[in-house]
């Protein structure tokens, strides 16, 4: 069985706002969410900016005890899931609860919990750990908590493939619905990287920009970290239409590859293989693609390699399609990146407007595509891709088709 899969619900929390509507307004308006990070006390950092969900208050949605039992990444993910389900208009019956799947991605898991425990242990010499440390820090906390929220008793799991985590999660959930193994999927991801330990570890890699995120430009000097979550609701197109649901677009294909190359350096060949696999999975010709939501981290290596891979896959058509990196606005949200960017791509197709790459100055050497510089563009595209390429060379690409 092969079915078409509709995206009917979207929930997001990010530096661009705490709701799907705020997120889209910022994206389409080219508004940055990258600002000086608040509350870091252990000496100077080489960078100061981040995509922080500054006004995020889980108590607006969750009860206080629940909040105390969840790390920040899972708090954000659960709020996104609640928004997505509400948006979809789905009513869970006992049968549907059994036929639903949940797949979430996270690169880091509950790092706030771990940081606090290890600080107390190593620095304060306090050997007592909070009893919630393990259940708060575990990567699958978000998936588990979503299942409890809605009483979903079908298959549920979590994947961790660094910066591709939530593209892998959405892709696997999509396959479940497409193949008839599930009637509904909640999929996406969450990461909350703004702890002292995670920030220092990223600083040590020398890939974080001391200024801001300027993907594909000549003066790009690194990525900007972001926190956030996004969850999509997916269901068979026929059922979505039959119940009169609003369909943002179709999730049409999913492609994966691994580079077998380097633990941090990307490979254009691996990225290209994943894009080709997504096109094949979606049964789309490359000429049908009008937009690519790029991985576009703003690092020297990624942006050149990704451009080269797009040129390789699309040939002459590469110059006719639009490519943008919304990371220039919400930052690199690591394990949430695929989900946040899938939300951005689905909303772009729904609204017929492509979000820009902001902070765009002059194109970098070898960056010869149309990056939708600085201002959104009103274009209704037929089909789109969203790329995620992880450290360790694990690539995952989603293909979207207009509803």
């Amino acid at each position, binding site marked *: 069985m092969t079915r078409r899969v509709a995206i009917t619900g979207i929930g997001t929390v990010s530096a661009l706002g705490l709701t799907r509507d705020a997120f889209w307004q910022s994206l389409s308006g080219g508004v940055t969410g990258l600002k000086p990070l608040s509350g870091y006390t252990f000496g100077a950092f080489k960078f100061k900016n981040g995509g922080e969900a500054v006004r995020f208050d889980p108590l607006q949605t969750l*009860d*206080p*005890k629940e909040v105390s039992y969840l790390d920040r990444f899972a708090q954000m993910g659960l709020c996104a899931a609640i928004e997505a389900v509400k948006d979809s208009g789905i009513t869970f019956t006992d049968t549907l609860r059994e036929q639903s799947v949940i797949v979430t991605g996270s690169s880091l898991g509950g790092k706030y919990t771990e940081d606090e425990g290890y600080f107390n242990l190593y620095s304060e010499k306090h050997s*007592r750990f909070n*009893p*919630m440390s393990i259940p708060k820090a575990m990567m699958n906390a978000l998936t588990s908590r979503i299942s409890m929220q809605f009483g979903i008793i079908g298959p549920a799991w979590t994947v961790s493939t660094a910066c591709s985590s939530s593209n892998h999660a959405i892709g696997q959930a999509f396959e479940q619905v497409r193949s008839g193994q599930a009637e509904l999927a909640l999929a996406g991801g969450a990461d909350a990287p703004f702890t002292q330990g995670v920030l220092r570890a990223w600083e040590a890699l020398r890939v974080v920009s001391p200024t801001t995120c300027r993907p594909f430009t000549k003066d790009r000097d690194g990525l900007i970290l972001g926190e956030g979550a996004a969850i999509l609701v997916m269901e068979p197109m026929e059922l979505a239409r039959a119940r009169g649901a609003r369909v943002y677009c179709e999730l049409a294909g999913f492609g994966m590859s691994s580079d077998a190359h380097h633990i941090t350096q990307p490979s254009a060949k691996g990225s290209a293989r994943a894009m080709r696999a997504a096109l094949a999975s979606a049964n789309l010709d490359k000429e049908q693609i009008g937009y690519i939501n790029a991985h576009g981290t703003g690092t020297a290596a990624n942006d050149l390699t990704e451009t080269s891979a797009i040129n390789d896959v699309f040939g002459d058509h590469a110059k006719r399609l639009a490519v943008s990196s919304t990371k220039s606005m919400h930052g690199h949200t690591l394990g949430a990146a695929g989900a946040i960017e899938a939300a951005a791509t689905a909303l772009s197709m729904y609204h017929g407007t492509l979000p820009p790459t902001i902070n765009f100055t002059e194109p970098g050497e070898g960056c010869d595509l149309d990056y939708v510089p600085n201002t959104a563009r009103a274009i209704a595209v037929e089909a789109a891709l969203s790329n995620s390429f992880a450290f360790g060379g694990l690539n995952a690409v989603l293909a979207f088709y207009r509803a």
Partner: protein
Amino acid sequence: MPDAAESNTADRVIAVIAKTQHIPAGSFTIDSTFEDLKIDSLDGINIVFAIEEEFQVEIPDEAAREIRGVRDVVDGVDKLLAAKASA
């Protein structure tokens, strides 16, 4: 003497349970059971942790498993405090 000590312990135990469970301190008494308060085993472990912090005592695992209500906590803490004072 024991009465004053017990009431002081009880107030502090109730305050700790109220705080960790996010329930109003006035909504339960020393006679409330964990079942009444919908406190499950994980909640119980959290309460034991917070009680140990509050009173600077160590509650053995076996004793922790026996706790069924607020009074069990208060009595246990008083015993541990008495043992500590006489040590």
